[in-house]
C-alpha cells in the first residue's frame, strides 16, 4: 500500500491536479470565510466548513478522483500494477489514502482561519476539531464514490460526471422523498458543522466509504475474468 500511496501522492504534485485542488479549496475557504464570518461579524466557523464542503464536494472531489483508475486503464499502466505481486486491495487503498491526504492538507491549511478569528473572539477548539473530523469523513466517503466511478470507465470525463451525479443528485431527490436523505452525504455533515458528533452520521459515512472501497476492489478483481 505504501509504495502506491507514495507514488500517487507524488503524481498529484507532478501534475497540476494537486496544486489546483488545494488552491481552489483555499479560495473557497477564503470566500466563505468572508461571507459567513467577516460580513456577519460572527466567530462561528461551522458555516464556513459547511459551505466549502458542499461546493468542494461538487467541484473538487470529482477532479481529484477522476484519474485514479481511468487513467491507468487508458494508458495500460494498470497492467503493471495488476501483474505486480501487490494485492488489489493494497493498490486500491494506496490510491484512496493518497487522494484523502490531499483533502487532509487543505483541512490543515484551514486552521489559518481559526487563528485569524482567535484575534477577535474565542474559538471553541473542540467544536472546530469535531467539524474537521466530520469534513475528513465526508471527504473520504466522497473520494471512495469517485474512486468507484473511476474504476468502471477508462474515460476520465465520464468518471467525473458520474461522481458529480452521484454526489449531487440526492440534494434534489430529497425534495421528492425523505428516503433519499440517507444517501445525501452533505446532510450527514450538518451535525459535525455545529460541533456535535452523532454516531449514526459517523457510521453511515464510514460505511459508505468502506462499501465503495470494497466494491472497487471486487470490480477490479472481477475484470480479470471478464477482460
Amino acid at each position, binding site marked *: 500500500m*505504501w*509504495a*502506491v500511496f*507514495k*507514488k500517487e501522492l*507524488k*503524481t498529484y504534485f*507532478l*501534475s497540476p491536479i494537486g496544486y489546483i485542488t488545494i488552491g481552489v479549496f483555499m479560495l473557497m475557504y477564503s470566500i466563505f470565510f468572508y461571507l459567513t464570518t467577516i460580513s456577519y461579524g460572527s466567530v462561528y466557523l461551522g458555516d464556513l466548513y459547511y459551505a466549502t464542503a458542499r461546493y468542494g464536494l461538487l467541484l473538487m472531489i470529482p477532479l481529484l478522483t477522476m484519474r485514479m483508475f481511468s487513467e491507468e486503464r487508458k*494508458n*495500460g*499502466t494498470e*497492467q*503493471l*500494477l*495488476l*501483474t*505486480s*505481486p*501487490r*494485492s488489489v486491495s493494497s493498490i486500491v487503498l494506496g490510491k484512496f489514502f493518497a487522494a484523502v491526504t490531499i483533502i487532509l492538507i487543505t483541512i490543515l491549511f484551514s486552521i489559518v482561519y481559526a487563528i485569524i478569528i482567535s484575534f477577535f473572539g474565542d474559538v471553541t477548539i473542540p467544536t472546530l476539531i469535531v467539524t474537521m473530523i466530520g469534513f475528513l469523513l465526508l471527504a473520504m466517503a466522497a473520494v471512495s464514490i469517485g474512486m468507484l466511478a473511476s474504476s468502471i470507465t477508462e474515460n476520465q470525463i465520464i468518471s467525473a460526471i458520474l461522481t458529480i451525479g452521484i454526489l449531487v443528485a440526492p440534494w434534489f431527490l430529497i425534495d421528492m422523498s425523505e428516503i433519499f436523505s440517507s444517501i445525501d452525504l452533505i446532510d450527514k455533515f450538518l451535525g459535525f458543522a455545529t460541533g456535535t458528533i452523532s454516531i449514526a452520521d459517523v457510521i453511515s459515512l464510514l460505511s459508505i466509504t468502506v462499501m465503495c472501497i470494497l466494491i472497487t476492489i471486487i470490480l477490479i478483481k472481477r475484470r*480479470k*475474468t471478464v*477482460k
Partner: protein
Amino acid sequence: MIEVKNVTKKYGSTVAVDNISFDVKDGEVVGFLGPNGAGKSTTMNMITGFIEPTSGQIIVNGNDISKKQKKAKKDIGYMPENVPLYYELTAKEFITYMAELKMVKRNVRKQEVQEVIKEVGLEEVQNKLIRNLSRGYKQRVSMAGALIGNPDVIILDEPTVGLDPKQITEIRNLIKKLGQKHTVILSTHILSEVSQICERVIIINKGKIIAIDTPENLEKATKEKNSISITVEDPKDNMQNLKEKIKEIETIEFKRDNNDGTKQYIVTSSSDVDLRKKLFEVLPKEEIVIFELKKTETTLEDAFIKLIDKAKENDGIEKMQKEEVDNTQENDQIKNNVEEKEEKK
C-alpha cells in the same frame, strides 16, 4: 519453469485462446510466433496473471498463477505490449517505483535500480521525464521495469516493435544476454528475430498451437524440395537440356538475365538429393561456366507461412465436412416433411 495446461480464454462466444498446452524450461528462450490477433498477447497476459483463463491452469515455478498469485507474480517480469509507462515520472523514478511494487528490499533497492539502468543502457537519460524520451528509450525503460527484482521469468510482448534497425539489434543482444540467466518468453511477428534469439518456437494461429519446435527443425520439417541457385555463362543455351543429363533434376527455372553474359537459374530436386556435386561434374562438359552456385536455405518465414496455410486448409476441410453434414441433415428433414405430408394425404 512455466507449465501451461489446457488453457482456454473466451470472450463471449469468440475463443481467443483455444485449449493450448506447453511448457518452458528453466533458462530457455522461447519465441511466441503468430499473425496479428492469433492470441499471443492474450496468452502472455494470462501467464502474467493480468487476465484469468476461462479454463485451464498456469503454473510458474510450481505456483499456480491464479491461486498463489503473490508468489508466482514475484517470479515474473513483464513488459507489456505498447510499453505502458508513467509519463510524468523520470526513468529512474519509474524503475524505483517498479522495484517497490516488486517488493525489492529497501536496503538493496537503490543499488539494484542502478544495476538495471546500466544493464539496459539508460545511464544518460535516467533523470529525464519519460514523456520526453524517444521510442527506443521508452522501450528500454519498460524493459528495465521487467528486469528489476531479478525475476526468474521474463516475458516480453513484442519488444522490438517500432524501433529502428540499430535499436532492434541492441535490444536483441540484450535479450540474448538475458537468456543466459533467465527464462525468457517473447512474442513477435518478426521471424528473423526468432531464428536469431530463440531456442524454441511456439507457432500459434487463431488461438491454437500449430507447432512447437526449434527453429532449425521447423525449417527442416516444412522443407519439401532442395533448391539450388546457380549463375552461369551459357552461350549455347545448354541449360535447357540439362534435365536429360541429370535425371534427379525436377525443375529448372530461369530466374533472370544479369546482362553481363551470365544467367541465373533455380534448380530443384527432391529433398534427399544434393545436386551440387553433379552440377559441378556435368556443367563443364556442356560448355557451361559456373560463376556462382548456392544452396538456397528455407527460412523460418517459409516454414511459418506453410504451417499457417496448412492450418487454414485443415480449417477449410473441417468446414466443408461440417457443411456436408448440415446438408445431409437438411435433406433428411425435407424427406421427412415430404413423407409426413404424404401420410396426411
